[in-house]
């Protein structure tokens, strides 16, 4: 009997600091598998965020840099422009990307930087203990809105993928989820496309991943999956918002 599953070579073989069930860990594995399959480990650079994934650079066996809060897309821009043969990806949470880093992501997308962005939407600030994020759902409690997000006071959630899709430059934008095995498989396909696009020099590629934060949602991981499906998915529908890679390839 032989093993049919294998740890990705581009991940360092250590246990992570993430909480039990955390979606970050699943997405790390998917990115690791994609880096292996595309054979790009020796030219990949991860730009790690501020947030629970602040140590992501320690888990990927590739070049790395950990940036100031929200500035990942700007750092990735610099690396990619200075070393165009490198495969640069910015890995960011929703506090990092959609609060303090909103300017960086919008302008990197608008400039059409030829980078890959993996955006983990868990509807909360994980690392700092569960404050409201721009992606927190209406009615969802957080430490800074203990009675639930109230649109009169805090406005409505921001749908980042839809918003970036209004820009002309981005080539590929998709929202996926890691709530079930079939969706994890789809998420991997999307991540692979976002990296393949960079290998093919297509242009700005962005994958939003709906993810769970059982710790700060205050539920066990299996219940957190139900919350993701029942509450997050209606606000954040899965799907492809932009895919212009083929037109570019055909040129």
């Amino acid at each position, binding site marked *: *009997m*032989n*093993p*049919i*599953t294998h*740890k990705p070579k581009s*991940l360092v073989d250590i*246990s*992570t600091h*993430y*909480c*039990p*069930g*955390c*979606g*970050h*860990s*699943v997405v790390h*594995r998917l990115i690791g598998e994609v880096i292996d399959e595309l054979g790009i480990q020796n030219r990949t650079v991860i730009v790690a965020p501020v947030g629970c994934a602040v140590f992501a650079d320690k888990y990927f066996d590739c070049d790395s840099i950990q940036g100031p809060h929200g500035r990942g897309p700007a750092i990735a821009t610099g690396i990619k422009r200075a070393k165009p043969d490198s495969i640069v990806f910015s890995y960011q949470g929703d506090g990092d990307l959609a609060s303090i880093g909103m300017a960086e992501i919008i302008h990197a997308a608008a400039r059409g930087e030829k980078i890959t962005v993996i955006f983990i939407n868990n509807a909360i600030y994980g690392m700092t203990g569960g404050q409201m994020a721009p992606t927190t759902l209406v009615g969802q409690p957080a430490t800074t809105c203990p009675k639930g997000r109230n649109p009169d006071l805090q406005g409505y959630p921001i749908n980042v993928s839809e918003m970036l899709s209004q820009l002309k430059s981005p080539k590929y934008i998709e929202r996926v989820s*890691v709530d*079930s*095995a079939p969706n*994890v*498989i789809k998420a991997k396909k999307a991540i692979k496309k976002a990296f393949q696009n960079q290998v093919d020099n297509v242009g700005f590629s962005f994958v939003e991943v709906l993810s769970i934060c*059982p710790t700060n949602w205050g539920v*066990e*991981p*299996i219940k957190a*999956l139900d919350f993701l499906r029942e509450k997050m998915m209606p606000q954040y529908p899965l799907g492809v918002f932009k895919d212009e890679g083929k037109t570019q390839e055909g040129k």
Partner: protein
Amino acid sequence: MPKIEVDEMRCKGCKLCTKACPKQCIEMSDTFSKTGYYPAKLAKQDCCIGCAMCYTVCPDLAITVYK
């Protein structure tokens, strides 16, 4: 017969694999691992079909599937 092995040093007892297994082959141990979690384990030896759904959802690369 396919089977899984759970690395108790990696498993964080999140139970996501128990939910993902189409044959309900996985249950949680009732004793702590060295890392302080109740790790997952294969409940019955002849249950597993080697589909790797458990591996697919496991956040911690704790499962190896054999076929």
